[in-house]
């Protein structure tokens, strides 16, 4: 299927001109027509199989996470989200990050650098719920999972979304 070797962690991917054009054409979504890749191909002057191969290649390198129906969680009743932040021992962050990331109410889980003295937290988990009480219950579950590895934690609720867009690339 792919015309390239499988990537390793160390590989970085340089977007080609064609990739950039594809991203620009599809960042608002795929065409809702019977043959969406053919329509994109017509717009770009290439074949549909080339368009599909481009997406496959970007996905193999992790530049493209997936092509999917992207839910608007807020509209689906997930009206509360809390960015939870945790200070855990450095030598356990990978193990704990994987366990927290596997919880079904966590959408993102990242390790990030501390920024002492202002910021002591090295593990971030985005927690979603129908209400703040719901989010609080989930936070208690994470705290229980972490046990004594939880040296400090905090939760930052969003009060306003001031800007939210997908990946934007400037036109050439």
């Amino acid at each position, binding site marked *: 299927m792919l015309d390239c070797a499988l990537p390793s962690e160390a590989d970085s991917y340089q977007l080609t001109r064609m990739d950039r054009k594809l991203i620009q054409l599809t960042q608002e979504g795929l065409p809702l027509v019977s043959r969406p890749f053919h329509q994109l191909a017509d717009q770009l002057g290439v074949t549909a199989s080339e368009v599909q191969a481009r997406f496959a290649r970007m996905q193999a390198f992790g530049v493209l996470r997936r092509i*999917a129906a992207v839910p608007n969680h807020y509209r689906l009743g997930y009206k509360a989200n809390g960015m939870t932040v945790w200070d855990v021992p450095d030598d356990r962050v990978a193990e704990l990050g994987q366990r927290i990331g596997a919880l079904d109410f966590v959408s993102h889980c*990242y390790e990030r650098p501390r920024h002492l003295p202002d910021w002591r937290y090295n593990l971030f988990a985005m927690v979603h719920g129908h209400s703040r009480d719901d989010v609080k219950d989930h936070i208690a579950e994470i705290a229980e999972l972490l046990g004594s590895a939880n040296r400090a934690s905090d939760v*930052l609720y969003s009060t306003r979304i001031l800007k939210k867009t997908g990946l934007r690339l400037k036109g050439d």
Partner: protein
Amino acid sequence: MVTSLARRLLDRYQKGLPVCSRPYAVMAAELGVTESELLDCLLHLQQDRVITRVGPVFDHHKAGASTLAALAVPPERLKAIADYVSHFDGVNHNYAREHDFNLWFVVTAGDQDALQNTLKRIETETQMPMLVLPMEKGYHIDLGFKLAWSEDAR
């Protein structure tokens, strides 16, 4: 209203849909409806903003350089500073949050130099304490999560 078809569709395809010549026909067959019924359903979900789109989800980190950053801003200046931060094309998320660091945003750029340049401009222009917190490792990144359907989901 989120119809039963829409629920099944979201449960099944928020993590990925078939990449083939006629993806919607394949999805329709899997869900036991016609292609045009499936396309109608997607169109309605999009119009009602239940889905933001049917399409690719890109990893900003791998498509260039990006970082999370935060500013501690006096409440009375939050709006003005948020507007300033949002005006950069590379800023694609910008949230007010309840904390001393009350403005959280993601900055993206074509490469590290451009990213650092934008961060420096924001820091210099706002003169506010800033955290720069790039992702060091992702353990679970937006793969969708199990939707517990509630009655207020409409």
